[in-house]
């Protein structure tokens, strides 16, 4: 009897709270309506223009001239897409945006390798090795992240010119690497700070070699953060216009620059459907990357938050 009383007392103590505050039933409250409304508005800001772009790219010029931009196309017509890709004119060159696509790909890979490679190693060194003045260096790097590109644009042109890489793919890659260095280094440094100290100590005792530890131990542990940085960099390099415009020579201009030329050059009427199709073609690659790697992106962003 006494044990039963004791147990029921214990249970009562534990069960009190859930009884007093039963789990709230899911339903529509004023709060969730406001949130939904707000989110819907946010979504519409992006979706409505996107809708217009998509339907316009599928319309014929005859329909566009009627002026109803929200109307669905009369018939699915991919002519504009083909023209945009293959035949639209950027200045005097009428080979479509595919030229830019190839240039962008050519720019993308060296830029990615250079920017991620440099900042990854710098972050590793700053986080896990005893570097003199490491914190001052980090602070300066951090300040550099706030310097607007436009301020250092002209000096950089002179510098790349001095090194004879101005107007080449390498030149663009170097500028991308320089500009993304501060923020990427900080990201990598913070990620590597979370590597357990003892693993690094063990590696120091086992090998003690900077590069061997980096390639064999640290790099294989950086999968998550690599995905995050990869997505960030692919998007920013692909969507970049200013660096491509400033540092790209003839034949090395990225897709965004070609797109701009397609849109602003041309004779006679403005072919909205071709322009829209060209814009969509330019925007597709980062989108694909998001859809393919998006899942890892979220994992990577939260990876540092909870230690495994």
């Amino acid at each position: 009897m006494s044990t039963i009383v004791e147990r029921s007392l214990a249970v009562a103590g534990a069960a009190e709270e859930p009884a007093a505050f039963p789990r709230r039933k899911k339903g529509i409250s004023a709060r969730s309506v406001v949130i939904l409304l707000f989110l819907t508005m946010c979504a519409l800001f992006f979706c409505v223009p996107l809708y217009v772009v998509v339907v316009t790219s599928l319309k014929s010029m005859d329909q566009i001239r009627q002026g109803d931009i929200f109307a669905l196309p009369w018939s699915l017509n991919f002519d504009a897409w083909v023209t945009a890709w293959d035949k639209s004119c950027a200045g005097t060159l009428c080979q479509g945006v595919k030229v830019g696509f190839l240039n962008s790909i050519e720019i993308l890979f060296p830029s990615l390798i250079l920017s991620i490679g440099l900042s990854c190693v710098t972050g590793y060194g700053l986080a896990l090795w005893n570097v003199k003045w490491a914190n001052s260096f980090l602070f300066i790097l951090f300040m550099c992240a706030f310097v607007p590109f436009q301020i250092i644009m002209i000096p950089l042109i002179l510098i790349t010119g001095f090194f004879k890489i101005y107007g080449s793919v390498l030149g663009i890659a170097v500028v991308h690497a320089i500009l993304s260095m501060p923020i990427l280094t900080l990201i990598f440094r913070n990620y590597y700070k979370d590597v357990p100290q003892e693993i690094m100590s063990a590696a120091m005792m086992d090998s003690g070699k900077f590069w061997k530890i980096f390639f064999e131990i640290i790099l294989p542990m950086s999968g998550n953060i690599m995905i995050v940085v990869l997505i960030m960099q692919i998007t920013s390099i692909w969507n970049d216009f200013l660096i491509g415009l400033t540092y790209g020579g003839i034949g090395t201009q990225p897709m965004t620059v070609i797109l701009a030329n397609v849109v602003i050059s041309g004779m006679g009427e403005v072919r909205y459907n071709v322009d829209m199709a060209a814009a969509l073609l330019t925007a597709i690659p980062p989108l694909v990357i998001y859809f393919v790697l998006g899942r890892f992106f979220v994992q990577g962003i939260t990876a540092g938050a909870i230690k495994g």
Partner: protein
Amino acid sequence: MPDVRFEQIVKTYGRVTVLKNLDLAIGDGEFVVLLGPSGCGKTTLLNLLAGLIDVSSGRISIGARDVTDLDPKDRGLAMVFQSYALYPTKTVRGNLKFGLSSFKLDREEQERRIAWAAKLLQIEPLLDRKPSQLSGGQRQRVAIGRALVKQVGVFLFDEPLSNLDAKLRTETRLEIKRLHDETRSTVVYVTHDQIEAMTMATRIAVMNAGVIQQFGTPDEVYDRPANLFVAGFIGAPPMNLIDATVTGGGMKAKVGADGGEVDLGRYPFETRPRDGDAVVLGLRPEHFSTDGTLNGAGAARFSLPVQYTEKTGADATTYLKTGDRLLAVSLSPERVGRLKAGEAFEVSFPHDKLHVFDAGSGQRL
């Protein structure tokens, strides 16, 4: 197998001094345990030896080599870490292999050593697994294996058992002891667990506040604690430390106002105190005679009321009230069962188990 010597080691962080002029000589093939409460500098000392942190001043030598300024990998050491510190992306085999990366060995020799260590630790079936697929005990074995494959003369252990459960801890303790017996290497082992220290060490360095309080065999540390810190730290339940005043020409100690007298006549003083000196008497709970056999022959005899009792399975402790403090006395669990709170209980204490310390300096007299 080399010996290890620390000479005049000082380690400071900013204005905080962690180690002060520390000297320690560890003999060839010894199993030395650095024992102390957290923050006493024992792990710092181990990391200094490993080369993971630099000394502020002083000299460390291993064998005939001065290693003070050498890189960790060049010191000829292997270390096992508290959190195991296995490389998460490598298999067990890869972990062991990376342990060999500072040695220039051909593939055959590498394979031979990995196979040898795996056999010794019975981790052969695990060689192709990743650390995340192993249990705590298995990870610990792999961590030890990664140290073993190096076949160096000195092994360092940094609280390697503290993440294991009690049963596994006992097993691994025996395992490490066995490995030491087989390899005859020098071992420096850091722990805050006195059971580990007492069971494994050939000598124990008891540390507190950056100073080695006593360096001796487990028996010495237990039987002849050099000062009050060691006396209070070693032993469970801890030694009863009682303030007393010397009387009777240095032959007796008066405990409290009414607590009676303890006979110091047969105590082997190194420095004999004078009348009126304040001393601290140390009486281990397990040395009390409770069955009356000692009768009047002991150094002291108390009849005190029982405050409460505690059972821990094989052992039991009763706490007797004396003045405003408690006196712990170890008993068999059966006898404790018969004790009632408030009842007077008679205990005696033998001459040869008594410890006397100077109250001011804390040193053994």
